[in-house]
C-alpha cells in the first residue's frame, strides 16, 4: 500500500461538472489494496460515472460486505453515506436502507466471494425483488484476502497460481441475475474504462435492480497463465456485444451513427442509452436471447461483455409493495397515525 496521501493539487485544466465539482472531488481515501488491483480501476470508474452524472455525493449510499472489493467504498465518494456490513449481507442491508429511504442512490459493492458464496442467497433475493440499486460485483475469481483460493466464480479448468486445476463448476452471476429477473444486466472488465464508465452511469440511472459483473484481475493471485480472469485472458477472449453512450438531458442525439448500428433505449428518468452494436444481431431487450447468447459464448470460452439486457420500463420493489413515496425519516406523527376515525373504519370493516 501507499503511505503518503494523494496530493491535493490537481490539473489546472480539469473540467467541472454541473455542480462545479471536478472528478477529484468524488475521490475517497487512498487505496490500501495491492498495487495494480483491478478493483482500483473500478473505483476510478465509479468516480468518473458519478462525476459525469453530476451526482451530489450526499445523495449516495454505498454499501458493501467483506472482502477486497468491499473495502473499496472507502476509496471513492468520500462525502457519501456508507455502510460496511457483515460478510455477504450487503444486499439485505441495502434492501432495508432502500425501503426506509427511497430518495437515495444505492450503490452495492461486492465481490465474488461476498456474492457468489457466503452471500449467494442474499444476492438472489435482492435481485428477485427488484430493489432499485446498482449492484456491482468486482469479480476476480479468487479469495484474495486469504491468499488466492478459488472462489465460486472461478472457471472449471482454470489454474491457480500454484498450478492447481479448479474442478468445480463456476457460478455465472450474470446468468443468474438474468434468470432472477434483474432489469439491467451488464458485464465489463476493469481494464476497459471506456466500456465500464457508461455502464455504471446507465445502471445508476436505471430504476430497478441493475447488476454489473466486472471482471477485475487479482494481480497478486490470479493474473497468471492458466487463469481465466487475468488481464491477458480477458483481453484475448473479450466479446463485447455493444458499446454504450449515456445521454442525459433532452438534447437531440448529436453523435452520428451509421444506420442500423445503434439501438436507443430510453429509461424511466429520460436518460437515453445509445447502444452502438458490435454484434449486429444482438438485441439488448430480449432476456431469453441474452441467456442463450451468454451460454453459447461461455461454452466457447468467450467472455461476453457489454449491456446484455435492459428493461427500460421495469418497476422496483417500492412499486410492487405500494410503499409510501416519502422516506420514513420524513414522515411526521400525523402521517403515521391516521387517528381514531380511521381506526374505527378499519375495525368496522373487520366486524
Amino acid at each position, binding site marked *: *500500500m*501507499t*503511505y*503518503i*496521501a*494523494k*496530493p*491535493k*493539487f*490537481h*490539473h*489546472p*485544466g*480539469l473540467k467541472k461538472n454541473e455542480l462545479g465539482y471536478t472528478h*477529484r472531488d468524488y475521490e475517497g481515501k*487512498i*487505496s490500501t489494496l*495491492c*498495487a*495494480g*488491483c*483491478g478493483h*482500483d*480501476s473500478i*473505483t*476510478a470508474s465509479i468516480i468518473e460515472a458519478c462525476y459525469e452524472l453530476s451526482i451530489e455525493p450526499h445523495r449516495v449510499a454505498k454499501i458493501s460486505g467483506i472482502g477486497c472489493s468491499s473495502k473499496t467504498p472507502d476509496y471513492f465518494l468520500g462525502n457519501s453515506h456508507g455502510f460496511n456490513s457483515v460478510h455477504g449481507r450487503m444486499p439485505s442491508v441495502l434492501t432495508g436502507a432502500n425501503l426506509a429511504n427511497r430518495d437515495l442512490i444505492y450503490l452495492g459493492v461486492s465481490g465474488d466471494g461476498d456474492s457468489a458464496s457466503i452471500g449467494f442467497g442474499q444476492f438472489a433475493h435482492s435481485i428477485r425483488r427488484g430493489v432499485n440499486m446498482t449492484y456491482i460485483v468486482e469479480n476476480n475469481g479468487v479469495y484474495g484476502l486469504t491468499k488466492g483460493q478459488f472462489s465460486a466464480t472461478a472457471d472449471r479448468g482454470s489454474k491457480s497460481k500454484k498450478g492447481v486445476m479448479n474442478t468445480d463448476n463456476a457460478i455465472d452471476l450474470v446468468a443468474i441475475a438474468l434468470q432472477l429477473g434483474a432489469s439491467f444486466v451488464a458485464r465489463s472488465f*476493469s*481494464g476497459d*474504462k471506456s466500456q465500464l464508465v457508461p455502464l455504471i452511469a446507465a445502471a445508476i440511472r436505471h430504476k430497478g435492480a441493475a447488476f454489473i459483473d466486472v471482471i477485475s*484481475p487479482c*494481480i497478486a493471485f490470479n*493474473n497468471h497463465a492458466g487463469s481465466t480472469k487475468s*488481464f*491477458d485472458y480477458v*483481453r484475448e477472449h473479450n466479446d463485447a456485444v455493444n458499446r454504450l453512450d449515456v445521454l442525459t438531458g433532452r438534447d437531440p442525439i448529436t453523435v452520428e451513427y451509421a444506420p442500423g448500428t445503434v439501438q436507443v433505449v430510453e429509461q424511466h428518468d429520460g436518460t437515453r442509452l445509445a447502444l452502438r452494436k458490435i454484434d449486429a444481431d444482438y438485441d439488448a431487450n430480449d432476456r431469453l436471447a441474452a441467456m442463450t447468447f451468454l451460454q453459447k459464448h461461455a461454452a466457447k470460452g468467450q467472455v461476453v461483455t457489454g449491456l446484455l439486457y435492459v428493461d427500460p420500463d421495469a418497476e422496483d420493489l417500492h412499486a410492487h409493495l405500494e410503499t409510501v413515496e416519502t422516506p420514513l425519516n420524513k414522515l411526521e406523527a400525523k402521517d403515521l397515525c391516521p387517528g381514531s376515525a380511521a381506526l374505527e373504519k378499519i375495525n368496522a370493516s373487520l366486524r
Partner: protein
Amino acid sequence: MKPTDISAPDYFHKVVDCQWACPAHTPVPEYIRLIAEGRYSDAYMINWQSNVFPGILGRTCDRPCEPACRRGRVEETPVAICRLKRVAADFKDDVKHRMPKPLAKNGKRIALVGGGPASLAVARDLAPLGYHCTVFDSDPKAGGMMRSQIPKFRLPDTVIDEETGYILNLGVEFKGGHRVDSLKKLLGENYDAIFIGSGAPRGRELDLPGRKEATANVHIGIEWLASVSFGHVEKIGRRVIVLGGGNTAMDCCRTARRLGGEDVKVIVRSGFEEMKASPWEKEDALHEDIPILNYMVPIAFKHVNGKLIGVTFQKVKAEYDAKGRRNLVPSGEPDQTIPCDDVLVAVGQENAFPWIERDCGIEFDKWNMPQVDPKTFASTNPKVFFGGDAAFGPKNIIWAVAHGHDAALSIHKMLSGEDINERPLPEVHVSSQKMGIHEWSYDNDVSGDKRYKVPHRDKVIALKDIKTEVELGYDVKLALGEAQRCLNCDVQTVFSAPACIECDACVDICPMDCITFTENGEEEDLRQRLKAPSPHHDQALYVAEGLKTGRVMVKDEDVCLHCGLCAERCPTGAWDMQKYLIDMTLAGSTCQTKARSAA
C-alpha cells in the same frame, strides 16, 4: 508520435524546468534537497561548481529559474529558489578546504580584462587547471559591477569579499587599480589568450533641454551608484526623481532614500507592468514609500540659472497597432513639471570599447559591438574571447557566469590544441531512487504549503543605514518549509513498456491526470485525447510504445508532481523514479571528448 528518446541528455533536462532555464544549468532540486537535509555546505558546493557565486546570486540573481518552476503551474507561486541558494551560503560551514587545489602551473598565461563575474568565472575554471590567470580591473577590489553597482543594503561587501576570495585564492593574480587602456598593448604582452569581461560600463545619457545647464544635479545612475559604493557620494537632495524602469532605477531610488531623499519618485515612460525591473525589486521600492509613476516621458530639465528645479513630462498612453506592437502616443493631457532637487538617470547601459584599437583583428558590427560567437565566445581574433555584458550587451550576473564557463572551455580547448567548435556533450547520470516497496530515497510527499516570505529588516532601521542589509534571509525553519515545496522534478518518471500489463493503476492514482493509454496519433491530435488535454506545446509528451494492446503510453510532463505514486501503484515496476543529474561540461572535465552517456 514517435516514441520519446529518453536517453537524449536534453529530454529529462527540460523536465527540470528550473535547471533548464538557468543559464548556468544549476542542479536546483538537488541542492534544495540537500538544504532540506541540513547539508548546507554540500548544497553550497553544488552551487559553487555551477554558478560560482552562490551567496551573491542568492541575493541578487534575476532568477530565470523561478518563472520556469513547475510549482508555479500547479499553484500560485514558484519555489523561492533564489533565496534558498542564499540559505546554503548563510548556513554553510567553512568550505575553504573543499575548494579545488590548483595543478602545477602549465606555463600558459591568460589575461582577463575586468574583475567582474564573467572574468572571475573564467579564472575559477582555468586557474585550477594550472593556467596563470591575471585579472585587470580599474577598481581596487575584485567584483566589478557586483561591487560597484549593487547597493550594499542588498549585497554586503563581506559576501563579495568571500566569494571573489575563493577564486583569487586559486592562485589568480589580481591587478586592481589597473585600467587596461589599449588592447594592442595587452596583445603585445604575449598572453596565450585574452578574455574580455569588461561589462557594459557606460550609463546611457538623456539628452534633453536643460541637461547641460543643470548638470550639477543630474546624475547618471550607474556612475552615481558606483560613487556611493566607494564612498565618494554621501548625500542627495530631499526631492529626487529617478528616470527609468529597470533594476538599476530600483537600486537608485532605494539608495536615494538612504542618503537623505525623503520624497523619491520613479518615473517611467512605459506602463508599470511593462517595466524591466523584476517584480520583487519593484515591490521592495514601493515598500520603501517610493511611488512609481508611469506613462510619463521626460521632455526637459527645468532650471533657474543652472540650478535644477524640476523635470517636465509629457503624458502618454499605449496604443497597439495591427501587429500588436506598442506605441506610446501623447494622451492630450497637459505637460506636467515635477519639482525636484536631483535627478538620477537610469535609462539603460551601453558597451564602450574605446580601448580596443580597430586594427587588432577584432571585427565590430554596425552597432559597434564586437563580433562574438554565441557558442564559443571567440572573437575574430583567435586569441581573444568575450563574455558577460561585454559580449552581447547588458544582461545579468548569472548570464556572465554561463558565458565565463563557455569561454573558459574554449580557451582550454584552444590551448590544448583542440577544435573549440566541438563542444563535448554533458555527462548524465540516471539512477533509480527505489529503496523498498514504497520507499524512495527522496521525500515524495508533496507539501501543500504556500511560498514563505523572506523576513525583512524593519523599514525604519533599514532606511537609516545604507550598509544595513534589508533582507534577513530565511532562518532554518523557514528554509526547511520552503525547501519542502520543491517538487523534485529531477526525479524522473521512467517507463518501461515491456513490463507494463496495462492495469491502469498509474492512470487512476495520478493526482494530475498526466498519464493516458491510448491509440497513437499525431501530436496535435494526441494532445486533445489526453485524460487532461494539454495545450502547452513547450512541455513535452513522453510517448512509449511496445504495449501488448498496441496502444501507447503518453505522459504529459507539464504538471507532473514527481510524487512517484505511479511507481508506487505499479505492480510490475514498469514505472520507476530515477534521479537525473547532468554535469554541464566545464573546462577540464575529466575526459576531453565525452561520448553521449545513455540515460
